[in-house]
C-alpha cells in the first residue's frame, strides 16, 4: 500500500511517497514554493512517481498538509501540520515528548502523550518573529546565506543583544549595530539567541524531553544549540527535518484510510 504526503509550506513544497506495508520511504523531495502551488505539487508528485516506476493509480491515498494544504487538488483529504509533524516525529523518534517545528512563516510547539499523539500545542503566526522569514531577512541584511548565519554565530565572542522582536525593527536595529561597529558574527549570534528566546517563551515552562526539532529552520546551523540554551534542555534535530510534515501526512494517509481507496 503506497501513500503520499504533500506538505505545502510557505517556502517549499515537500512530497513523501511511503510504502506503508513495508514502512519504507520510497521518495522524499522538496521544491521551492511558488505562485502555482497546486501545479508545483502535482509536478513534484508525478516526477517522484515516475522516478520510482509508479503511476498515480498505485497510490492509495494522499494527504495534504501545511499552509497551502487546501490548494492541493491531488489530495484525498487534508490534515493540519500540527498533527502531521507529530505523526512524523513518532516514526523517527517514538519516545519524543515535545516537538518544535519552525517553518518559513510560523513556529509551533507540540506536547505529545506517551502514544505520540498531540496533547497540546501553541503556535506563533501573528508576525515574522520566530519564523524562518525572520532569519532570512537578517541573513540578507548581514549579506550572508541563511546556512552561513549559524557558522558566523559560532565565531562570535560577545553576542549582541537584539531587543526587537518585530522583523522590521530588528532589521533597523541590526543596521544600527553594524554602524556602531558590532561584528556580523556577534549580530548573528544575538539574532539566534533572540529567536530562540522567543520560541522558548512560546513553549512555556516544563517542556518535556526528548524534544525534537523539525521544519526547515532546523537546518540552520546553530539554531538547535541556541534553542537548547534558551530552553535549558537538549533539542535534537529530526532526521531530514524539512520532510517531517510530509512524512507524517503519508503515515496518516495509511492509518486513516482503507487500502486501495483510489483504485476502487
Amino acid at each position, binding site marked *: 500500500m503506497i501513500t503520499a504526503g504533500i506538505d505545502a509550506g510557505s517556502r517549499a513544497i515537500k512530497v513523501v511517497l511511503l510504502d506503508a506495508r513495508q514502512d519504507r520511504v520510497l521518495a522524499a523531495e522538496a521544491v521551492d514554493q511558488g505562485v502555482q502551488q497546486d501545479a508545483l505539487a502535482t509536478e513534484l508528485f508525478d516526477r517522484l512517481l515516475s522516478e520510482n516506476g509508479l503511476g498515480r493509480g498505485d497510490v492509495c491515498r494522499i494527504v495534504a498538509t501545511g499552509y497551502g494544504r487546501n490548494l492541493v487538488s491531488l489530495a484525498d483529504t487534508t490534515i493540519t501540520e*500540527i498533527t502531521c509533524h507529530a505523526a512524523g516525529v513518532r516514526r523517527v523518534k517514538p519516545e519524543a515528548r515535545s516537538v518544535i517545528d519552525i517553518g518559513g512563516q510560523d513556529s509551533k510547539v507540540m506536547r505529545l502523550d506517551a502514544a505520540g499523539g498531540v496533547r497540546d500545542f501553541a503556535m506563533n503566526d501573528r508576525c515574522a518573529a520566530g519564523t524562518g522569514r525572520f532569519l532570512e531577512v537578517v541573513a540578507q541584511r548581514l549579506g550572508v546565506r541563511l546556512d552561513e548565519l549559524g557558522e558566523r554565530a559560532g565565531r562570535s565572542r560577545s553576542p549582541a543583544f537584539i531587543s526587537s522582536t518585530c522583523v522590521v525593527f530588528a532589521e533597523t536595529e541590526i543596521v544600527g549595530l553594524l554602524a556602531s561597529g558590532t561584528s556580523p558574527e556577534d549580530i548573528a549570534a544575538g539574532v539566534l539567541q533572540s529567536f530562540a528566546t522567543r520560541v522558548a517563551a512560546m513553549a512555556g515552562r516544563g517542556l518535556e524531553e526528548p524534544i525534537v526539532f523539525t521544519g526547515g529552520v532546523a537546518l540552520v546551523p546553530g539554531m538547535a544549540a541556541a534553542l537548547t540554551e534558551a530552553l535549558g534542555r537538549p533539542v535534537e534535530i529530526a532526521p531530514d527535518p524539512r520532510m517531517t510534515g510530509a512524512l507524517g501526512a503519508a503515515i496518516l494517509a495509511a492509518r486513516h484510510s482503507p487500502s486501495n481507496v483510489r483504485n476502487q
Partner: protein
Amino acid sequence: MSEQPRQITLDEWEARYACLRAAGVLPEYSYGGPLGRHVRDGDLRLRKLRFDNSPAALRLWNFLLTEEERLHQARRTGSKLVATMKDLGTVPVIVFALEGLVAFYPDGTWWTPCVMEHCDGLLRVADTLGIPDTFCPVRAMLGAFVEERQFPRPDLIVCSAGATCDDFSAIAGRLESLGFPIFWWEIPHRQAFTGEEAVQLPNGFVAARSQVAFVRDELERVKAALEGLAGRRLDEAALSDGIRQANGVRGLLEELRRLVFTANPCPLPAMELLIAEMFAIHFCSDRAECLVILAELVDEVRRRVEAGLGVLSPEAVRVYWVNPVADLRVMNLLEECGGRIGGTDHMICHALVPIPEDVAPLEALARMALADPMVGSSRERAARISREARALGCEAVVVSRIPGASHCGLEGAIIADTVRREAGLTVVEIEVPPLSDAMLPTLRTRLEALVETARERRRA
C-alpha cells in the same frame, strides 16, 4: 416549506424568506424583513456568514440589527435613554423597572466595525481621539458617541469603575473628557476577607459581606440618579417586578444553553447562541420583545432536540469557548473545522443565572454584580471555566483573545494552564480582530488542529 435545520448563506436566506413570506408562515413584527435589507443598510459582513435557517433565528437577527432604529424611535417618542456601560447586566435591570426609561449598551458597538466591515468608520474616529488599536475594539463606542448614528446622545451615562479592565477605563475616561458626563459607580475587586462573613454568590463565587453592602449602596446611588431622570420613585415592588422580568430572560437563556450544550446533534449554531446570550445583559433595548424572541428560539430548539435534529454532524467536537469574538465569522469557522459549541464563558455568566428573588432587590443585584467573572481574580474565573467545561463534557477549550483588551493579555495563560491541569483538556489560544479575513487560514489551522487532537483522544 419546512426545511431540515441547517446553516444557510445570506442568498439562501433571501430565497427562503420569499418562500416563507409567500406561504404566510412568518410571524408579523415591526422590525421584520429579509436579512438582505441590513446589507443594503451597510451590514456587509452578513454576506460572509452562514445563518441558522429557522424563522426564530431570522427574528433574532432582525431584532439585533434594528436596535439603532429602536433607540432613535425611543428618543422621538420621548423615552429617556440610559447608556449602561461595563457593568454587564445589572444596571439595565433597574433602568427597565422605571417607566419611560430605556437602557442600552454602548459597549455593544464593538461589533459594528465587524458587521459593517469598517465602513462605519468608528474605529477611525477612535484613532483620531487618541485611542488606537492597542485598545480593545470596544473603543468603537467613542466614535458612536461622537457621531450619534448608532444611537442618539443618551440622557444619562452610567458606567462602573474599579474592578474593570484598564483599556475600558481609559476609553470611558476619554469619553468623559469629550464632554459626556458619566455617572460613575464603583465595583470592587471581589474577595473574601479573613474574619468576615462571606456571602455566597451565583456561579460558586464568594465575596465579603462588606463588599456586598458597598455595592448595594453604590446601586442605591445609581437608582437615585435614575429616579431623578425618570422623575419618579422606584419602589421595591416595581424593582422586584423588574428582577422577575429579567429572570424571565435569564430563564429562557438558561434553558436555551442547556438544550444547545447537551443535545447531540447540536441544535443551534454557535453564532446565534452567542447573540442570544448577549441579550441577557442589555435586552437589546426592548425587554418585552426580547422575551418573545427568546421564547420562540427556545421552542424551535426544543422541537429540534425532541426530533433528534441538529445543524451539525453528531461527530462534531464539543468545544468550550471563552470570551466573545470580535468577528462573528469565527463562530462559523469553528463549525466548519468540525467543532461545535459545548459551553461558553462570554464574560457574562453572572447575567445568565437567575437573580435571587428571596432577598431585597438591591441586595440581590449587588450579589449579581459581584458575581461578574471579570471583577474577581483570573484564577477564580479559570477554575469556574475548568469546572464547567468538565461538567458539560467538553473535549477542548478555545480561549479567544480580544486584541487590545487588557484582561485577555493577563488571563489567557492562566485560564489555559488551569484547564489543562484541572480538566485535562487541550486548549488553544487565538486572537480575533474585528475583521479576521486575513487571519482565517491561521485561525483555521489552529481550530482544525484542536478538533483533530480531540478526535484522536476520542479514538484513544
